[in-house]
């Protein structure tokens, strides 16, 4: 070959945007195994989120409150509509439902300790209530799920609230999974299932369908518990206006709305990434549904899915939520995906921050496992302290923002305190694009 031929410019290798490296890797993995990818966590794709909103802060037209001196309350009461004993929380940040089975007993205890120390509630999950979490949770919400694993009236009567789970943001329309590696003797007994099976929970309730039945189911639960505790309805965000309206009509005290960034212990990746709505997109329709029924603030709205900081809390509340709920962030506070376990993450073929094979039960941090050796790595007392600190910081952050906007309670935050950085977030949050008084779809606002 001559020197002249060597100098002919060649086309550089170009990777396909459609068939990217991760896409191709997944095709090869599917071809090798014949099974879809299962993982934990919520949507990893980038979607419009609270980061796309900004607070406007005080100005000539509004005055701020003194950051360290003037009062800014954070309390919230959930279940004021019908319950004799509503749940009174010191902060508007609750811990979302996560099951014993998906999490170790130590992790559940740590969540209870941290939430209790911060003055808030924690929630059971698919698999029933453990004595450990009841003992360490001053306020415990008992989930009533389609599978009814571990459901019994004694635990129902011990609960401070009941959450009827219709769906969750990671998999609206799907049931839970708990694979055989995590079905220990205790988990199997609590769920009345054979040890070691790949357990796939039911996706719909066995004894009711539709909002009219739901109303009767709520009546039954209230009769069993003497109308004492609040009834929550949890839905995965898909049709937030109608789901919220129907839950309110059915008699819910509280509606919990979970966006697609909300995590799960295990489900199909295709489900997590391709079904549901971003959290940001579902708050305003849900608030509007409650307002249309005259139920806003009478039926409380709890929003979850990708809440990470006090800024996220403040933004959710400004859009009309009464409280938020955290799951993934609480696990990270306990130690999930901590870089100190990097060497072990590498052995599992992943890296800190990306580990999501929670269903395999090999969690180096000892949180999403039933392996006694791994679970012992999490000290429930230390985990509880870390969670309490994290909740405290989130609350302080939210207060900082609220005071800067001139509010003496987090619930006084309002959409007028916000602007949006992108057209998409402006449309979803229905707050003006930064520097304008316009958002897509604004009534009388042009195209």
């Amino acid at each position, binding site marked *: 070959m001559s020197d002249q031929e060597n100098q002919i410019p060649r086309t550089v290798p170009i990777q396909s945007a459609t068939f990217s490296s991760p896409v191709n890797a997944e095709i090869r*993995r599917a071809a*090798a*195994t*014949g*099974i879809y990818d299962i993982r934990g966590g919520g949507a990893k794709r980038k979607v419009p989120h609270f980061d796309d909103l900004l607070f406007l802060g005080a100005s000539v037209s509004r005055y701020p409150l003194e950051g360290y001196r003037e009062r800014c309350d954070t309390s919230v009461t959930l279940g004021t509509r019908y319950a004799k004993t509503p749940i009174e929380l010191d902060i508007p940040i609750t811990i979302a439902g996560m099951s014993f089975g998906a999490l170790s007993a130590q992790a559940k205890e740590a969540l209870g300790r941290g939430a209790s120390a911060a003055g808030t509630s924690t929630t059971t999950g698919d698999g029933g209530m453990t004595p450990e979490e009841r003992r360490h949770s001053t306020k415990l919400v008992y989930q009533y799920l389609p*599978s*009814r694993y571990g*459901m*019994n*009236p*004694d635990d*129902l*009567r011990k609960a401070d609230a009941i959450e009827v789970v219709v769906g969750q943001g990671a998999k609206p329309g799907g049931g839970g999974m708990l*694979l*055989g590696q995590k079905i220990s003797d205790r988990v199997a007994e609590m769920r*009345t*299932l*054979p040890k*070691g*099976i*790949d357990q796939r929970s*039911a996706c719909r309730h*066995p*004894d*009711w369908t539709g909002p009219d*039945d739901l109303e*009767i*189911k709520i*009546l*039954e639960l209230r*009769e*069993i*518990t*003497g*109308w004492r505790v609040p009834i929550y309805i949890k839905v995965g965000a898909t049709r937030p206006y109608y789901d919220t309206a129907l839950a309110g009509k059915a008699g819910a005290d509280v509606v919990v709305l979970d966006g697609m960034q909300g995590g799960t212990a295990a489900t199909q990746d295709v489900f997590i990434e391709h079904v549901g709505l971003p959290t940001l997109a579902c708050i305003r329709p849900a608030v509007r549904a409650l307002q249309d029924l005259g139920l806003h603030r009478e039926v409380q709205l709890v929003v979850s899915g990708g809440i990470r900081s006090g800024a996220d809390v403040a933004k959710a509340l400004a859009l009309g939520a009464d409280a938020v709920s955290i799951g993934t962030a609480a696990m990270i506070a306990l130690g999930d995906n901590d870089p100190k376990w990097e060497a072990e993450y590498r052995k599992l073929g992943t890296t800190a921050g990306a580990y999501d094979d929670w269903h395999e039960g090999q969690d180096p941090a000892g949180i999403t496992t039933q392996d006694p050796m791994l679970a012992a790595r999490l000290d429930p007392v230390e985990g509880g302290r870390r969670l309490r600190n994290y909740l405290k910081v989130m609350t302080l952050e939210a207060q900082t923002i609220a005071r800067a906007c001139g509010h003496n309670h987090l619930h006084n935050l309002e959409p007028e305190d916000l602007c949006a950085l992108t057209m998409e977030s402006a449309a979803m949050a229905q707050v003006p694009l930064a520097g304008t008084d316009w958002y897509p779809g604004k009534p009388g606002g042009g195209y």
Partner: protein
Amino acid sequence: MPTYDLSTGGLRGLNEALHAVSGATPNEGWTVLNPMGSHAIAVGLDAPVQVTVKGPTGYYCGGMNKLATVHVEGSVGPGVAENMMSGTVIVDGDASQYAGATGHGGLLNIKGNASSRCGISMKGIDIVVHGNIGHMSAFMAQAGNLVVCGDAGEALGESLYEARLFVRGSVKSLGADCVEKEVRPEHLDLLADLLDRAGAKAKPEEFRRFGSARTLYNFDIDNAY
């Protein structure tokens, strides 16, 4: 014997009175008049009290029962004895869908027919149906015994776990992973006991047994990595 008229007393008053009964209370029988299809009658009972309901009920009669005996002299709506833990619920008439759903224990004795999804997701309850049952019965049933003296509808035992199903009449079709199994002597003893407790005149030898093939218990992976 206390009598409670639902047409004048209201549901809350009835359940409140029944919840006030404890194991230490003398075991008085309660009679409920004029149920008129009301929902959630005698739910969440937690003591060995006898309750007789004089007429038809709506949804969830006897729901989450523990220890009590609830006898309905009529037909019942959906979800009778749902999630029952122990005790007995007797239905003189027919039962609508989801009878005995997710029940953990006790005996549900239906003297008429049961509609679709009878015993759905059952977790240890014993259900005896003197007549027929509808489609998708024992769907995802985990534990316990379902005894059907008549016929079973389509997709019996769909995605079944470890519950045992006994049918005396015909079975229109079996659901995924449900197969017919041998009736062994221990099953005849079990049937004899359940039929006797339910007052059913059928003979154990007349029943066929169905259970899980257990092929759906784990994912089918070609090359686990």
